[in-house]
């Protein structure tokens, strides 16, 4: 299977690889996936406490080229967004941007999960309650 130009570009020059201090109060960390499944993504956001905007984002990923490209792209998109805006990033946006084939859609799902997990971690640390919009069915 051949990879798209955009996947290759992100794979060769991954953006924002690295580690933020996971213990810092203004850092949210999302760790998703499992080594047994061949994908582990760690995505971190650093929030500017004055403005509430995401100031920095970093990732490290164990996985195939598409998984690395998906997380690299996610960090690019996260920077400069508010948490609410960041939470609206949909996996299909990533699929479209990177031209991922159907067999690699799970990589984009993982990236979306990682974003959500990082936001959730930040909110929990800072005691931020979010109004739950979805109704839970029994």
């Amino acid at each position, binding site marked *: *299977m051949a*990879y798209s130009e955009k996947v290759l570009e992100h*794979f060769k020059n*991954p953006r924002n*690889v690295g*580690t933020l201090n996971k213990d810092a109060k203004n850092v949210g960390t999302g*760790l*998703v*996936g*499992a*080594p*047994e*499944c*061949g*994908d*582990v*993504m*760690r995505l971190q956001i650093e929030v500017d406490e004055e403005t509430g905007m995401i100031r920095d984002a970093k990732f*490290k*990923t*164990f*996985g*195939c*080229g*598409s*998984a*690395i490209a998906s997380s690299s792209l996610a960090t690019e998109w996260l920077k400069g967004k508010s948490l609410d805006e960041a939470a609206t990033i949909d996996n299909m946006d990533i699929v479209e941007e990177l031209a991922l084939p*159907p*067999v*690699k*859609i*799970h990589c984009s*799902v*993982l990236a979306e*999960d990682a974003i959500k997990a990082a936001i959730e971690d930040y909110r929990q640390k800072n005691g931020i309650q979010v109004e739950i919009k979805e109704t839970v069915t029994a």
Partner: protein
Amino acid sequence: MEKRRLIYLDNNSTTPCDPRVVDTMVPYFYEKHGNAASRSHQFGWEAEDAVDYAREQIAKLLNAEDKEIIFTSGATESNNLALKGVFEMYAKKGNHIITAETEHKAILDTCKHLEKAGAEITYLKVQEDGLVSLADLEAAIKPTTILVSLMWANNETGVIQPMQEIAKICEKHGVLFHSDATQAVGKIRTHPREVGVHLMSFTAHKMYGPKGVGAMYVSRKNPRVKVTAQMDGGGHERGMRSGTLNVPGIVGFGKAAEIAMNEMDQDAARLSKLRDRLQAELTKMEETKINGNVDSRMPHVTNISFKHVEGEGLMMTFNQNIAVSSGSACTSASLEPSYVLVGMGLGDDLAHSSIRFSLGRFTTDEDVDQAIELVRKGVNHMRELSPIWEMYQDGVDLTKIEWSAH
């Protein structure tokens, strides 16, 4: 960056066709284009002679009789013919077949098919080093057992089964022994009669011959083995496999067998040194593991896990320069890592981190030097990107983490 030659270290998938083989095939496409079954004219006689000669060349490589060689379209067909053909031919004797979990899909899927047709199949587990347990094998044999089918050498790890010992057990219990010897024939000595193998499948394109032609060895005496044909038609190949013979392919197959017979030992000696160097240099890196028994293994193969790095991603760092294959299949259709490695008790995480290197006749010292450099670079790069490598380095026990499996 300097332009490098694309290095091919995936010879277990297929080998390049030796130019000497190609040369012998060419006349049989046009000048000598006859059908080997045409008995009434020169074209047919010429083709028949060429097929007879190739059959002799292959028989010599196996130290067998020419009549014991049946041509097919490849090892998959031979495996199908052996299993289905024996199951049908020996139905009165029993319906039980023994094989192993780490066999090729051509065996496993054929067995699945036979289960639907009423066969009982035992899939032996293998030990951590990839070898079957002889005690397990013997314990699995029962009065209804008609066939044991175990591969000579494994495609993913190169591990060679204890063929002679397996054959002895089969003989003791009067059970036929088939071996998928696709990865072994032409590379190591594979003499079925001497070892006690009654049926053996193999193919030209894994031994520097052309694709699309294979063969099955069928013992003609002590015991005289018969299989029910799976392809009906003109009754070619002693009635076991109908269909016009692929004359150019067979001619090439014969030449490949002749070259293998002459050069196998020197190729094996050279390649095992290169393989050992590649393996030693790569396993100098931290957290690597060689998969499979290193003492009973094909001379040109090594399978290595690079912990905390995913195989497909790793391959992407060097696949502009080196062609290898990985035990990781990262697609939504199959998130499953290599069943061969998992069958050997390797964790899914390590199976996802594995790369198979298979050298061949045309692999050079320089190829191996470059592969060492590029793979090391790739592993280091991917580890920089890997969160689990970072955790490992920080002393985190990865088994204690609650992963969100997906």
